[in-house]
């Protein structure tokens, strides 16, 4: 098809956009933020909350605009989602709220969230082109919602990646040169590690949907269909499930009944591989130090893959700005921007062990990276692979549950094809119902 000649009319949208941007910038500039107080609902507790509150206090005392942020622990992610849904109905919401992408999409069905695009692009209050290049693009892309015309409904304070945890000493003893790069190597390592007499095995199965997604993208697939909705009958999905079914049936993988039981088995030298979030590294480290086997060398690696380079599942909740007054919205954005500056990011990494969202944060983390080689190892992998994230569709949490259930059935011997076909139908029904 030939490209249509644009003519002068093609300039109209560009001029309108430029005018809107300029108008937006002027509007922001006129706002008086002095004395503006915004409430921030978060899920962090204990050490993370203490550190976050200290950062909030510092923002409150040092920001040039006279903004005050009030941070409140509001429960876990699910509790916060319940509160938000009730709050949106009752007109009682915070100004900033932590939200996974599917939760943000749910809130936006009621038009409750602010599209941050004009704030990000604002010449005075936004993010400059140079700063923008400093962000991991894959992290920022997660908060763009095609379902809502490409609106940006959140800003990331941090991210995590799904990785394979491996017992390096054990792998070496098995004669492996390093962590497996292909799924065939993964199978061979699991087989070699399994010894019924000693009670050891290869892989502690994570039924979590994030782990399933990580496996699918490691084979070049996706679960979001290009035309919208889900696709669970692709070859990468079928191959992933068939592989796990075989690994489990052959006795080289086990399901874990107890929460964090995979960490316990890993620390006690019973399992060679687990699959989990990078944010669990301090807990693994702690468990290994205290494990029955005594401390051993372990590491994290990208999942085995059939793609030329690893494709990593990046996830993490962002912070969304809830619609309120222009002053509160701008104040909320300025706090988010401040939190994503390298100095604050470095501070947050040290307490949370999450990945920072800006590359230059590494400059302020030299000593931390030296002291935490596993974090450094995983952080370095961010630059070597590409990142992909799970769908940001409304109702994705329900699909995740269905996905875990289907995976469980497959491990228990259900036929892969029909089970995935049924999952595909169910997921797409949920997709339609939640739009």
């Amino acid at each position, binding site marked *: 098809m030939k490209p249509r000649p644009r003519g002068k009319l093609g300039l109209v949208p560009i001029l309108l956009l430029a005018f809107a941007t300029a108008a937006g910038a002027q509007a922001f500039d006129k706002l008086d933020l002095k004395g503006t107080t915004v409430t921030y609902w978060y899920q962090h507790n204990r050490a993370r909350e203490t550190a976050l509150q200290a950062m909030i206090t510092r923002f409150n005392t040092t920001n040039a605009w006279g903004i005050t942020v009030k941070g409140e622990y509001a429960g876990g992610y699910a*509790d916060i989602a319940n509160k938000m849904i009730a709050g949106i109905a009752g*007109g009682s919401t915070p100004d900033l709220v932590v939200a996974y992408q599917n939760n943000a999409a749910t809130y936006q069905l009621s038009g409750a969230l602010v599209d941050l695009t004009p704030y990000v692009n604002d010449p005075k209050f936004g993010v400059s082109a140079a700063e923008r290049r400093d962000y991991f693009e894959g992290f920022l892309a997660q908060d763009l919602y095609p379902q809502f015309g490409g609106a940006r409904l959140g800003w990331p304070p941090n991210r995590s990646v799904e990785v394979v945890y491996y017992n390096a000493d054990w792998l070496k003893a098995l004669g492996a040169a390093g962590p497996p790069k292909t799924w065939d190597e993964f199978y061979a390592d699991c087989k070699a590690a399994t010894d019924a007499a000693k009670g050891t095995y290869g892989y502690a199965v994570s039924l979590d949907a994030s782990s399933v997604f990580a496996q699918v993208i490691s084979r070049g697939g996706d679960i979001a269909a290009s035309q919208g909705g889900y696709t669970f009958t692709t070859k990468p999905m079928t191959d992933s499930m068939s592989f796990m079914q075989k690994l489990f049936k052959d006795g080289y993988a086990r399901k874990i009944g107890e929460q964090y039981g995979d960490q316990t088995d890993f620390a006690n030298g019973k399992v060679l591989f687990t699959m989990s*979030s990078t944010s669990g590294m301090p807990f693994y480290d702690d468990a290994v130090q205290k494990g029955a086997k005594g401390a051993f060398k372990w590491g994290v690696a990208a999942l085995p893959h059939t793609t030329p380079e690893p494709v990593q599942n990046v996830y993490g909740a962002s912070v969304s700005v809830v619609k309120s007054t222009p002053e509160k919205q701008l104040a909320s954005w300025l706090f988010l921007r401040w939190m994503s500056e390298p100095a604050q990011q470095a501070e947050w990494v040290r307490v949370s062990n999450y990945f920072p969202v800006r590359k230059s944060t590494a400059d302020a983390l030299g000593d931390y990276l030296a002291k935490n080689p596993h974090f450094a190892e995983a952080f370095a992998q961010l630059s070597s692979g590409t990142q992909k994230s799970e769908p940001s569709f409304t109702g994705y949490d329900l699909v995740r549950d269905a996905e875990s259930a289907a995976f469980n059935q497959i491990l228990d011997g259900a036929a892969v094809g029909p089970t995935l076909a049924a999952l595909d139908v169910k997921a797409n029904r949920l997709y339609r119902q939640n739009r």
Partner: protein
Amino acid sequence: MIKKGTRYVFLALAAFVAVVPFLYLASNALKTSGETVTRVSPNPFSPEFWPQVPQWSNFATVWGADQFGAYLLHSVIISLVTLAGVLVSSVLAAYAFAKLKFPGKEGLFALLLATLMVPETVTLIPDFLIVKALGWINRLEAVTVPFMAGAFSIFLLRQFFRQIPRDLLDMAKIDGCSHLGVVRRIVVPLSWAPLATVAFLDVTNSWNALQWPLVVLQTSDWRPLSVGLARLISETGSDVPLRMAGAVLAIVPIFLAYLAAQKHITESITAYGLKQ
């Protein structure tokens, strides 16, 4: 005799099975976090089940660092205020359903019982809207007033009040008692067993509530113990001993309340086959 002995052995075994999770809770509350990784056994007869050296400091850590004292106080106040309301409203409503004649009584009672079948999640938003309209968000009223009337409590008390002989009430009326006087002087003094049961069940419900307090309390002013416990759960790993120590601290008051009301609860269960 053998039959009775077998029954006791069976009951003792069942009681033991029921107690094991609580022993597990207590033993893990006293372990180091390392021991929860290296010394793990579901068998109470295994040394691995128990800590090598009990870590009593876990309780102090939870109590001190996690504001458990404040949460506990909030829970006690919320439970007692709610309980007072429940007892007053349930006794009066149950008396009316059991002893008074008024049009639509049976239909109204059926409607009341039907509310037992509506899950809390369904009423969350309407309840929230009402509480907000009343200006109770972040206030004690939000976590107490909505629970001051309970269909189950009314049902339970009504069943008991129906057993009280009408003649007894009539005599009181002849002596000049009003309905309120009858309730106060005759009905309540005869009903300690069901009242204790209602009190215990109600306190337990208040004590365990998590979703509603989180929704209506957006600041930490009145947050109860259940929220304090939830704060001990982290996203990607678990500090088991502290979670378990927190759970033990949360259970103790309810356990004491049960001991205090045990006799009456058993009596109620025996008399009315109470199950919840």
